[in-house]
């Protein structure tokens, strides 16, 4: 019926463990054979043989334990990582909701950071300027918007970050559990905004450890365990399976 926004076809991703090279020249000279052997075998599988489709307007949740491969999946969707095997198709502009303060500079003011973040996320200056009043309004930062953000609290930073992403007309929105910050009232405002996106049929990929949030927002959920998909289906069914497995272990 409709073409998917995001398609993963048998995607695997492994990393070479570069940081193990830190042994230095001495190590390399003294144990050349061991090092070579090590380099050949030292790959780390972050994802193995993953396939799924995400359709336009769908809200897709990703759950799993720490280190299961959730962030790698988001990185692959955002296009900052390349798959080692398999194929990824993304149709549309991806807006990742950044972790606290990523892409912000502490010495710049809130306003200057909005512009910086906006162009980094793929907008032109005039597009950002048009949305500036809405973004400032949404952030509820008031006069602080003209202060350098190094004086902001973490809650204020989170508000600024979410305000930027929420007002840039995202096409595909990636959210990596950033809602845990800020006070409850602002968290609710963020959730409301996400629901608004959902209702206006923005495609959302949502990573979270909060099963409440997943159940409230997501249509379908993928449960990633041991670097591969353990379960894929309706939100209630998959979160149920995941919660039971957590309780067992």
């Amino acid at each position, binding site marked *: 019926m409709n073409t998917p926004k995001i398609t993963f076809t048998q995607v695997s991703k492994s990393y070479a463990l570069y940081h193990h090279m830190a042994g230095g020249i001495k190590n390399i000279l003294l144990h050349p054979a061991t090092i070579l052997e090590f380099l050949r075998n030292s790959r780390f599988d972050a994802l193995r043989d993953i396939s799924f489709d995400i359709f336009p307007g769908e809200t897709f949740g990703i759950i799993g334990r720490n280190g299961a491969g959730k962030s790698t999946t988001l990185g692959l969707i955002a296009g900052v990582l390349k798959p080692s095997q398999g194929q990824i198709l993304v149709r549309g502009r991806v807006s990742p909701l950044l972790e606290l303060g*990523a*892409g912000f500079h502490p010495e710049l003011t809130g306003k200057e950071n909005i512009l910086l973040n906006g162009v*980094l996320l793929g907008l032109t*200056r005039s597009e950002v300027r048009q949305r500036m009043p809405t973004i400032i309004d949404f952030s509820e930062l008031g006069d602080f918007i003209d202060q350098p953000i190094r004086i902001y609290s973490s809650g204020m930073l989170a508000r600024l970050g979410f305000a930027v992403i929420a007002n840039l007309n995202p096409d595909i929105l990636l959210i990596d559990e950033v809602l845990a910050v800020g006070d409850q009232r602002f968290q609710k405002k963020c959730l409301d905004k996400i629901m608004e996106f959902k209702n206006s049929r923005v495609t959302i990929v949502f990573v979270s450890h909060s099963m409440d949030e997943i159940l409230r927002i997501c249509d379908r959920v993928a449960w990633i365990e041991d670097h591969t998909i353990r379960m894929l289906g309706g939100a209630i069914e998959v979160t149920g399976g995941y919660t039971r497995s957590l309780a067992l272990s």
Partner: protein
Amino acid sequence: MNTLQQYRDLIIVLTHKEIKLRYKNTLFGYLWSIANPLTFSLVFFLAFKIVMKINMEDYPLFLIAGLFPWQWFSNSLNASSDLFLTNASIIKKVNFARNAIPLATVLQDMIHFLLSIPVLAVFLFGYRKAPSLVWVWGIPFLLLAQLILVYGLSLLIASINLFFRDLQKLVAILVTLTFYCTPIIYPETMIPGQYQYLIHLNPVAPLLIGWRDLFLHGKIEGSRLLVSFFFAFFSLAAGYAVYRKLSWKFAEVL
């Protein structure tokens, strides 16, 4: 559709940010940028003219004309190693044109060099000389050649440094070495005959000699300009090729 405009805006915003950050919280801002090459000019003047009595007319002017463009070259190169490292958080999340980061830094240093040219003109007047009309087209040409050269090298260093962090230390040493191998504190005519050929292997030498010729004598030598551009495009081609090969791995190693 408007990707070109988007890229242009990205560079403008990043460059603007660099300029702003350079002067944030300093009282004398701009003065600090020219204080550095001026101090070095003074030091070399004291060492070579006063103490060692080198036979050079208007030696301070000669030094300034070389040290201002050198300052741009060395600042940009020394900054380049860290560029992708310090932007790790955004590189890991967003797929934007990362090559805009070194470009913005090089442009920022270029703008500072441009702002130091009036100071140079003041010194010229002090020695009863004057800026020449040739500057009007000479400066843009040399500016472009140096921009391309420095950008190519920055891109190369910034990319490789992510995988081989020792490069940063190596670059710092090579930049210092290049300084003394380039005719900045001495004229190229003083190099002994059997070593003259070495100057053709130095990619910065034709540029630096070109700047000094332009500033002090108001002339541009066509062949030297051509060689400058040759090195510039070679550097850009090498830098871009390495960047393209490595850039998709940036998010993995950061």
